[in-house]
Every structure is written in C-alpha cells, then in structure tokens.
C-alpha cells in the first residue's frame, strides 16, 4: 500500500516538476542531442550517493531531479515501473567506475572521472569516440549494471524480479572439477528463484542499450560492447559441484550456483580489452547468417558463434541500416560475442586533453623497473621522470610463535618513487 502511494506521488512529481525541466534542458541542446545521450545515465553514479546518516528510501533516488536529467524517456519509464531499479543501477555505475579505475591504474589512461562536469558525461568525451578505452567503458558499465541488478534481485530490493522455475543452463564448472568426475550430473534442474542473472541481463539490455540504435558504426560498436559485458557476467554465473563419498570418492554430488565477484569480471574484460578487435562497417549483404538471436546463454548456446549480438528489434533495424561489424584485417576472425570492438585509436593519451577528458600522464607515478605498461619509459611517453624518496611503513622481521601467531615489527624504509615529468 505504501509503495503504491509513493509511486503515485512519484508520478505526480514527475508530471509537474521534472518533465518541464528535462524538456527545457533537451531543447537547449538540440544539435548534440543524440551524441552520447545513451550513456548519460552514468551520471547517476554521482547523483545517488547514499548518505550514511539517512539511508535512502526506495524512490528517493527516483525523485531526484538530477537523475532525471540524465535519463531518457524509456529509462525513466523503466525506473518508474520497477522500484529499486535506479538504486541498483546507481550502485552498478559506481561499481563500474571503481573497477575501471582499478583495472587501468597502471595505464596511461587511468579511467579518470576527474573532469566530470555536471550534466556532462561521466568519463568525458572519450565515450563519444570509438577507441578501445571506450569499448571497455561500455562493456564494464553494462556488466556492472547486470551484476548489480542480479544482486538486487537476490536481495529482494527490486520487487518486480520474477522467478523462472526449472531453468536449465549449461554447466560451467569451477576449475574443471574433479577431472570431469562431475561431468555427467544427470538432469540437474536449477529450481530456485534462480534467474536473477537473467533478469539483470534483460533489464540491463533494456536500460543500458536505450539510445544506441545501431544506426552508425559508433552506436553499433557500443551495442556490441554492452552486450559483451553482459555476456561475461552471465557466463561467469556458474554452477559449482562437489563430490561426496567415502575418502574422497564421488558416490554422490551436490551442486549450487555462484555469482562471480565483480573483480573477476573486470579481469576478464580487461583481457578482452587487451585483445580487442578493430572493426569497420561492412554491408550485411555479404554476410549470410543474418539472423539475430538473443544471446541469453541457455536458450541458444550457438549464438556465441555468430557476431550478431543484438535483439530482434535491432535486427529489424539492421536490415534498415544494413551493415555489420567486420575486422579491419580480413584475415582475422569476425568479432564474437565475447570480444570488445573499436574502430579508431586516440592519437595521444600522453598529453592532457580536456576535450576528451584525458588527463595525460604528467605527474603520474610510474615504476622504473617494471616491464609492463607502468614502466616509466612507456608511461611518461619518453618525457622522462623524476624520483622522490618517500618513507614507507611496512611490516617486517616477521617471526612465527608457537602456536599460532605471527609477530612482526614495524619498519620504516626509504623507497624511491618515480613520477613522470
């Protein structure tokens, strides 16, 4: 009853207060209306910062006018119809930023949101380009939203989650268990309120993909990367099985599901980023298998093989706009569902470029001895670096005391830290 009343209030609020503002806002910005608008929702990461003193009630975020400015009409409708969805998406957006910054901590571009201006895009205009970093941003945000909606569903904070009973999924085993001893689990039926991940997947698609219509190469690329992010979350939701029997034999086994930690998904997407495919637009006439399929894992495992990753609705559009993504090097395989795609490379990540929200590498910490991308020569783009001595406090001289305690001293050591000029 209370929820119903809040909902009505929300609607009224929206009709009288918010919409005029939003429309006015959009009106002033007609030229660039669609560029990057689909990803404006990332801004809600910063809008709904939960306050420790007063925990937000469901709907509070929804009524936040700043949130509405960033959402498209369809996204607002989704948020209105599903209480708790926006909070989950806000959490997901934060998760994505956090993970992105973790994954890129040693790279020239460090996923900074420092340039974030109110009403502008969270990561800066880099998201309007088609470079690998853009691909990663899209994939990680879409994955994070899927993950956090699934989590919210299992916690019960989104009330409109449904449960799909007896939902079969292909078995993915953790660490290839027991030398295949569990490979023939006969007809294991996953019977719980299980499809939270599926719900997260569908909702993420509805919400995140809004505004990307697949009309241009850039939009097509974004859709592909969004889908790839979701795919990795879903494929990592895995069934784990364990054998039980006398002295480690496998007379009977039990199975359960496990939602992966988001760090794991971040690691996978980073790998995909490192091996992202550069694509160009190709006429769809050249490709025979033009049947778009839903790539929800269990329904259609073969869909993984095709590079058609979009929904049916988009498929219709595909005929309209009629092109496909094709690798720029014709000898490469066409990008699959799991791959990230891009079509251009930003020339300089070394220098500060406020236009694209690129911080440059001036003053970044680097590592003289590293052989990776955080090596000073690489990181500083040849500009050179300077060293500073800092005092590091760490544990040392650890000794083991019987039993079972490890005692350490606190040591202060001087350490050289390098920074780029």
């Amino acid at each position: 009853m209370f929820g119903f009343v809040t909902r009505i209030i929300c609607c009224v609020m929206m009709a009288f207060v918010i919409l005029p503002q939003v429309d006015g806002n959009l009106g002033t910005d007609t030229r660039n209306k669609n560029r990057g608008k689909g990803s404006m929702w990332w801004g809600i990461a910063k809008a709904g910062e939960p306050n420790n003193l007063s925990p937000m009630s469901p709907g509070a975020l929804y009524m936040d006018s700043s949130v509405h400015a960033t959402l498209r009409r369809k996204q607002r409708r989704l948020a209105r119809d599903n209480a708790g969805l926006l909070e989950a998406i806000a959490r997901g957006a934060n998760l994505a930023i956090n993970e992105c910054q973790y994954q890129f901590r040693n790279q020239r571009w460090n996923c900074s949101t420092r340039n974030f201006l109110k009403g502008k895009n969270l990561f800066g205009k880099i998201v309007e380009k088609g470079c690998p970093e853009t691909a990663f941003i899209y994939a990680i945000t879409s994955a994070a939203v899927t993950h956090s909606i699934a989590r919210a569903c299992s916690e019960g904070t989104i009330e409109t989650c449904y449960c799909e009973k007896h939902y079969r999924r292909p078995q993915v085993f953790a660490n290839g268990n027991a030398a295949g001893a569990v490979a023939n689990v006969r007809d294991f039926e996953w019977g719980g309120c299980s499809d939270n991940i599926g719900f997260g997947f569908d909702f993420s698609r509805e919400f995140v993909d809004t505004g990307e219509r697949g009309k241009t190469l850039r939009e097509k690329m974004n859709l592909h990367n969004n889908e790839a992010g979701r795919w990795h979350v879903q494929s990592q939701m895995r069934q784990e099985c364990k054998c039980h029997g006398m002295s480690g034999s496998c007379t009977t086994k039990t199975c359960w599901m496990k939602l992966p930690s988001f760090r794991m998904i971040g690691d996978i997407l980073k790998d995909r980023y490192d091996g992202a495919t550069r694509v160009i637009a190709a006429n769809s006439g050249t490709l025979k298998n033009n049947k778009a399929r839903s790539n929800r894992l269990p329904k259609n495992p073969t869909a993984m093989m095709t590079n058609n990753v979009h929904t049916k609705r988009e498929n219709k559009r595909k005929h309209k706009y009629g092109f496909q993504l094709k690798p720029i090097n014709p000898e490469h395989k066409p990008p699959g569902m799991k791959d990230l795609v891009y079509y251009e490379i930003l020339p300089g990540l070394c220098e500060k470029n406020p236009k694209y929200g690129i911080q440059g590498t001036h003053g970044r910490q680097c590592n003289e001895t590293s052989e990776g991308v955080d090596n000073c020569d690489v990181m500083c783009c040849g500009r050179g670096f300077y060293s500073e001595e800092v005092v590091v406090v760490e544990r040392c001289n650890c000794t083991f005391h019987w039993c079972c305690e490890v005692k350490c001293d606190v040591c202060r050591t001087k350490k050289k830290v390098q920074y780029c000029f």
Partner: protein
Amino acid sequence: MDFWPDIPTSDESLQYYFNDFDEDFFHETFNDIWENCVVESIKSIYNSLSITIYINLGFGLATSLGLPENIFHWLSALCGFYILIVTLQSAKGLAVIFISYLTIYVIIFVINTFHKRLKENKLKEYDRRNKYFHFVENSSIAQYSLIIFFVLFEYILLEKETWLEIRGIMMVFSMKLISIITDIDLQNFPSFSQYCGYMFSGSNILFGPWITYDYYLFLIKYPTKKNIYWLLGIVRALFLALFFLTVSNCWTSYFIPDDSNKLLLGYKEALSFRTSHYFICYLSEALMLAAGWKEKDHHFDEQYWKLSVTNPLNIELPSALSIVVINWNKPMHYFFKKYIYRKWLPLGKFYAIFLTFLISSLFHGFEIKISLVLLSLGIFSYLQILVREQVSQTFNICVKVYPLLHLIFLGVLMDESTNEIGIYTKWSNLYFFSLWIMFINFLIVK
C-alpha cells in the same frame, strides 16, 4: 543545469567512497549463500538420496516384524540392488560392481570347496604340505590377490570418473569381503543368499560403514523395535549430515574468502574436505539406523539410537594425530586393526604398519594423493608418539600437542583441484611446513 547536488569531485574522496563501497559488494552476501548454495545443496541431495532413505526406512520397519532368514537376506540384497541402480549414473560402473560381487562369490566358493575336500580326503598330504595350506587357510593371499586383481582391473579398464564414482562402494565391498573370509570357518561357508544380503545390504552399500558379518546376522535373531527414539535418532543424524554438508559446500567459502592468506585458504580446503566426510558419515549413520542397526553394545536398549561412525569434535580439536586416525572412521579403523594389523603383527610392528598402510591405499585405489596422505599420517603420528614419550620422560610432564597444522597440510591434497595443479604445488604453497615439523620431530627422537 544547476540541479546537480554538491558532490565531491576530487578522486581522493571518491576513492574513499568506492573503497568503502566495494567491501560489501565484492563478496557474496549471507542471503546469496543461503539462496544459491544452502537451499540448492539440500535440494540437490534430497533429489539424489531421498529414495535411499525411504527404502531403508521400509527395510527397517519390515525387519522389526521378524522376517524368516532367507527372506531377510533377499530383501536386504534387493534394497541394495535397487539403491545401486537408482543412484549410480554410469551403467558401466554398475555392471562392474555386479560382476565383481558375483564372480568373487564363485571364486571363494571354489577355493573353499577345494580346500574342504583336500582337508577331508587327503589329510596326510595336507599335513605334509602343511606350510602351503596354512597359507591358503589364512586365505590371506587369496583375499589380497583377489582385491588387487579387481582394483587394478577397474583402474585400468574404467574411465576416471566411473572409477571415482564406484570407488567408495568398492571399498566397503573389499572390507566386507576380507572380514567375511576371515571370520567364517570351513563348515559355515555363507550361502549365496547370505552372501548377497550381507554384501548388498542397502543400508551400507553406498557410504558404509562396514559392519561385521556377525552383526549383520545378529539383526535376524534379535530384530530391533522401532519407536519414537528410532525416528529421533534418524532425524538427529540427518540433521547433522545436512549441517556438515552446508558447511562443506557453502559456509567455508563464505567465512574464508578467496583473498585470505595461504594458511587460511589451506585450512578452508581441508575443512571443506573434512566436513564433507562428516556429512557422509552421518548420512551413513542415518541409513544404518533407518534399517535397524545401531551400536552393538546398546542393541537391546530401546531408547538408544546411535551408531558412532566419526567424531568431528575429536578430529577438529585433536590432541594427537593418532586420535584423528582413530576417529576419522571408527568402523574402518576397527577393521584395519582387527583384520590387517593384527594379522601381520607376528612379522613385526614395522611390517604390520607398512602392510596396513599398503592395503589401506590399495582400498583407496592406489591414488597417489591419498596414499601420500595415508603414509604421512602414519609416519607423522608415529613420530609424534615417540616425541611425546621422550619429552614426557625427560620433563616428567604430560604433553599435549595440537596437530591442526598437519591436518591442513594433508587436507589440502584432498581438494579436487589437486588433480590439476599437482601435489608439489599444493604443498609448496604451504612451504612444506608439515615436513619441517616432522623433520624436527625426527631429530628430537634421534
């Protein structure tokens, strides 16, 4: 554009916020574990084992009426057949079990008649070749060669999964076989129905525990009365079984997350293995109680319904490794002591221990990791006892040691990932600390 709230935009404050944020977001919540793991594990085990439990309850109720002997044996065997067919997933494994159970009977029957005839007809010759026949009469060689033959046969012939599935069943089988051959004398050779009833007994064919042939027959003469204590006893055992199952599957990884230190992770793997073992033990206790067997000393106590297979408390908080070995699986320990160790004791203590170890690892299908664990357990506990005696004598005090570290060290091997990354890696992850402790023990003794 002015409706953005004032928010911190510097990276530092955001970083603080994010770090705060990911604490609860990167690990599965209690709710997740409950819904995705606990409930699912219990459902999963219910689906596969509910029939087994019902069948044993039915068998228990039927036997309390006091069945004639033959019917008792055949009913017991039929229950076992059916449980095997329902539970086992590989048809090949099932076939191997049936064939080996039946051919073994034929073989021991032939040996027995041959033996009997020799004894009756050629007494003189028998005396002359006494040495040889004594060998056969103890039937040691016969038993062990049979078991070696079967284990090797299965190990080479079957795929790894199939073997892993039926190994537990074959272990119980081997124990029953050795005890039945040792216990019977020439005249009381078990009939085919007796053999089938004992070997296929539905209550312990899957998970043990091993019971003596005598106690199997005991129930026919003195059937136990089924009352409310009987039901409570079963419920208690099942509850404990499910508790340990959820600890093994879910709670260990909930309380010890994947980014803990190596020692904790090792403890987690070992704990998960041990609790899985307790689960099996309590499940087997429940099945035995359901079918009507309980501890022999309390057979006529109508209010006592327990059959102690393992003792988790003594294993989790052990005062010596030997206590762990004894309490790990009590019936099995009793079996090894009675039928293997004592038998070889005349050869000397060292040989007896060594042979017991050898046969024990034979029962486990000569799997390297298990053999290594068994060998280490044997040596560790032997050294520990020696050290303890020495220290007690020197300082004239009672010494207690807590071999928890050893348990972690050995337990990590039992995890399924060992097959992939290898024993050496597993142990080097823990810096071989048990081996160092053992080495120090050894030096003290010397």
